[in-house]
């Protein structure tokens, strides 16, 4: 390899920008955007993934670009951590871009060219966020990313609901950006140099380090969809076109995780265990909240968005455990937690991307997004159903797919708890593991609901179609869409079956970041065995697992076929002999969540109307709302309105009064300046 990965990654970023601009130039020529821009963007993504992979194995490289303001050039740097996130960005976006080429097939040309520009600027900005080596470029890229995604979210801006979703997103994104900016300000300490190298060297007192940690944690957490700053996520992600939802949920949330790891581990350094406990508590709350609210949704894309909240919580659990171990001086276990968190970051990008693409396929081909309108789609969209099932099994943390591996690693981190000195924290850690187990089982329930209601059963009568599907869309999704989904589905298998190789890569990331690595036994275990610490303590071999399970299933089929006849009669469903069967008698998405509402009732804000027995026109209504709106968002909004109405009193609309203000200001200034 003669190309340096950093140069390659910069070239790929520039290529994305160029594609975006080119998509705009032949205005009205949608064929270019559709047929060339998106597939080309996918190839660039693949190249970026290769450079990222290469960078993970090489020493860090840095470069000063002759861009930016005079005396304030952009610094870029590519180390294993950035390389890992570029791998994630490139590989996952490749699948999504290919899919987008098919998905945007019928888009109006003027809209498509604009989407193309925003889409590629968004991708390039995310690449720059990971490459940035000074606070200036980082914030520029971060804001570009936020704005590009804002415009993508508001693609359908003629709908008021989508406009307000976009506004909420922009608002919370900027609250987060302010916190990040303040964090850089603390790290910077008035030295005039905003490069990350200078921030890294800053000496902070424990108090200021903790303030910087809190600012970074909540600043990046706002972008990641962490509780209680999650409210934008279930509104904004479903509003965007499906490939963009996949990009936002799959990749953009991960740039926030990148920022968190970069700032907390690298720039602030000296991780304290108290920080870890904060991360754990918020992570656990986020996990549980995300999955419980996901179970209550019947809009497929909203449901997936709530699962993104949940998975961010799982990543935070891994990070929090890692910080606790580092804080108590157990770096080997700390690196294990970091590896688990980063592994889950990659896994979530892959399977959540896949699931959003599947949801997009249903929306695009059938015009449906409400689960209660779907049913029996496995017969008319068998390929989409197959890929969606893989994604559903992966997110439910079932072996041998990828979701299981990262949750397994998180469990193994929690099981290192006995080495901790602090009694309370030691017994808390396994409880967080129990929380993770609960969330995993609830996720499985949620995806049984999604797959069972959308793809299995009998077709329901659509009552809330988004649009009527065109005649040529009646079948399964097209070849480009299938290719995109197949790529991500293959990712679920590869990441699930060969975790030991990923462990080596992530160990490199951990070593370059913290100076510590996993145990030698863990690294020497070979590609077949995943060993977090020592083989005696725990091991897992997904390949053997898969071979055995496929082997015994095939053997069973063979034996049953060999020794018994294979006769089958087809008939009506039995259903305990009940004669009348209509699709309306099937479970709905809301009915499926009924038992959850019963068990976890106090956690929801439910408004229910149960009709009485003698009601002539009985209607059962149920509304579930997010409590955070009432105790956090609305009070803050009212406070802001109150303050601005008071400030508004200054505006009298008469020029003489404004002149008076100027006069008073001048007098005040003179007093101070003298």
């Amino acid at each position: 390899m003669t190309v340096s990965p950093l140069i390659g990654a910069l070239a790929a970023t520039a290529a994305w920008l160029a594609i975006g601009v080119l998509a705009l130039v032949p205005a009205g020529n949608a064929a270019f955007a559709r047929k060339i821009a998106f597939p080309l963007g996918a190839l660039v993504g693949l190249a970026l993934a290769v450079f990222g992979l290469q960078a993970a194995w090489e020493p860090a490289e840095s470069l000063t670009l002759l861009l930016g303001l005079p005396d304030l050039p952009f610094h870029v740097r590519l180390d294993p951590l950035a390389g890992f996130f570029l791998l994630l960005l490139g590989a996952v976006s490749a699948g999504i871009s290919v899919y987008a080429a098919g998905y945007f097939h019928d888009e109006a040309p003027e809209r498509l060219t604009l989407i193309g520009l925003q889409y590629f600027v968004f991708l390039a900005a995310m690449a720059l966020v990971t490459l940035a080596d000074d606070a200036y470029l980082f914030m520029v890229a971060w804001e570009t990313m936020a704005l590009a995604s804002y415009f993508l979210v508001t693609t359908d801006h003629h709908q008021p609901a989508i406009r307000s979703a976009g506004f909420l997103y922009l608002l919370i994104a900027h609250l987060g950006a302010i916190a990040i900016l303040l964090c850089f300000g603390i790290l910077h300490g008035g030295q005039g140099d905003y490069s990350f190298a200078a921030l890294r060297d800053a000496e902070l007192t424990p108090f200021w380090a903790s303030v910087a940690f809190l600012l970074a944690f909540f600043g990046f957490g706002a972008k990641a969809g962490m509780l209680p700053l999650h409210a934008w996520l279930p509104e904004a992600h479903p509003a965007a076109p499906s490939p963009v939802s996949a990009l936002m949920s799959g990749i953009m949330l991960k740039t926030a995780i990148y920022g968190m790891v970069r700032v907390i581990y690298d720039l602030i350094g000296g991780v304290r265990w108290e920080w870890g406990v904060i991360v754990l508590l918020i992570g656990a709350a986020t996990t549980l909240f995300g999955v419980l609210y996901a179970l209550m949704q019947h809009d497929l894309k909203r449901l997936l968005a709530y699962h993104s909240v949940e998975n961010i919580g799982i990543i935070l659990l891994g990070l929090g455990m890692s910080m606790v171990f580092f804080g108590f001086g157990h770096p080997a276990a700390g690196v294990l937690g970091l590896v688990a968190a980063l592994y889950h970051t990659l896994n979530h990008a892959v399977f959540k991307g896949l699931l959003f693409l599947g949801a997009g396929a249903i929306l695009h081909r059938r015009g449906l997004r409400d689960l209660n309108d779907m049913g029996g789609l496995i017969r008319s969209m068998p390929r989409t159903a197959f890929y969606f099932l893989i994604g559903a099994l992966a997110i439910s943390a079932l072996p041998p797919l990828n979701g299981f591996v990262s949750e397994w690693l998180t469990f193994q981190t929690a099981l290192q708890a006995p080495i901790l000195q602090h009694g309370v924290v030691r017994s808390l850690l396994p409880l967080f593991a129990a929380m993770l187990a609960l969330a995993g089982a609830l996720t499985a329930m949620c995806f049984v609901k999604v797959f069972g209601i959308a793809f299995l059963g009998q077709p329901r009568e659509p009552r809330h179609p988004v649009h009527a599907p065109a005649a040529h869309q009646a079948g399964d999704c097209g070849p480009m869409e299938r290719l995109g989904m197949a790529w991500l589905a293959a990712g679920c298998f590869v990441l699930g079956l060969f975790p030991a190789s990923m462990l080596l890569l992530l160990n490199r990331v951990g070593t370059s970041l913290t100076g510590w690595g996993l145990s030698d036994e863990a690294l020497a275990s070979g590609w077949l065995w995943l060993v977090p610490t020592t083989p005696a303590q725990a091991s897992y071999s997904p390949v053997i697992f898969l071979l055995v399970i496929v082997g015994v299933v095939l053997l069973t089929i063979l034996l049953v076929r060999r020794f018994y006849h294979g006769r089958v009669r087809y008939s009506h469903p039995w259903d305990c002999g009940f004669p009348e069967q209509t699709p309306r008698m099937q479970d709905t998405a809301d009915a499926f969540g009924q038992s959850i509402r019963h068990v976890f009732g106090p956690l929801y804000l439910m408004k229910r109307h149960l009709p009485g027995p003698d009601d002539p026109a009985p209607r059962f209504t149920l509304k579930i709302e997010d409590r955070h709106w009432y105790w956090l968002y609305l009070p803050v909004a009212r406070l802001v309105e109150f303050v601005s109405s008071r400030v508004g009193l200054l505006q009298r609309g008469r020029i003489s009064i404004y002149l008076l203000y100027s006069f008073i200001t001048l007098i005040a200034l003179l007093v101070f300046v003298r």
Partner: protein
Amino acid sequence: MSDVPDIAFQILQSVLVVLAAPLVLGWVNQCRAWLQNRTAPSICLPYYTLAKLFHKDAVIAEHASPVFRLTPYILFGCMWLAAGIVPVLATSLPFAPAADIIALVAVFALARVFASLAAMDIGTAFGGLGARREMLIGFLAEPAMLMTLFTAAFISGSTQLTTIVDTLAHRELALYPSLAFAAVAFLMVLLAENARVPVDNPTTHLELTMLHEALILEYSARHLALVEWAAAIKLFAYMTIGFALFVPWGIAEAGDWAGLPFAVAALAVKLALAGAGLALIETVSAKFRLFLAPEFLSTAFLLAVLGMLTHFLVRG
């Protein structure tokens, strides 16, 4: 990392478990009949039932998808795999390092997900109901089960079931309060996960109360046989997990082939006692309302957590 006798033993043990599982079910049914003052059926009745089902023609709903037809095989395969991980007779299982206790719990979860999907496949009212209830029990039981297993993992410092058994079998006969809590929790999870009486009634087909039966309502003939057989293996696997964690004595060590006959005898005694105990529990208790199941299982969870905390406290 393992030699030929070990692999041969691994295969032998998993085949043995698969073949012996219906016998345990027959024994439980027999004990229950005695306790309830009924004439007991033959202990081999489950085998006759399976043979009968295998010979029948399968009836499948017209619009069933491949998920429906494949699920019985997946269920059976999952349970067979579980039978390969749990040390039943000896701890020399070359396959065991490939999947630890967390993977074991995940295998049961995989089976549950497919069973629920198959139930929803036909699109009947009962199928969806069964799937919903099964997943409800599942998400409540899974954390409790993991906590129980974690307590044992903390004591032995490993999540490998074979290592756990090796450690626990060789400890001095001391009282572990943490394991006592865990044992009660495990028993409650076992009852719930295997659709046993306080949570579900394996003999009922009453529409409004059934859990497991609602799930498999549409299956017939060989598919039903596989599902029922898988359920029997699951019960067997849960019982042997319980033995492995709480009464591991008598199990043959790795390479100790001479201890095998003794291990078989010990297993037979343990199974006979456990089966009789299960029948007793099922006779003296009544089935709960469905929404008491969450309370039952959260009690199990809390007991498991208490067990784990006790471990940390006692150890200092």
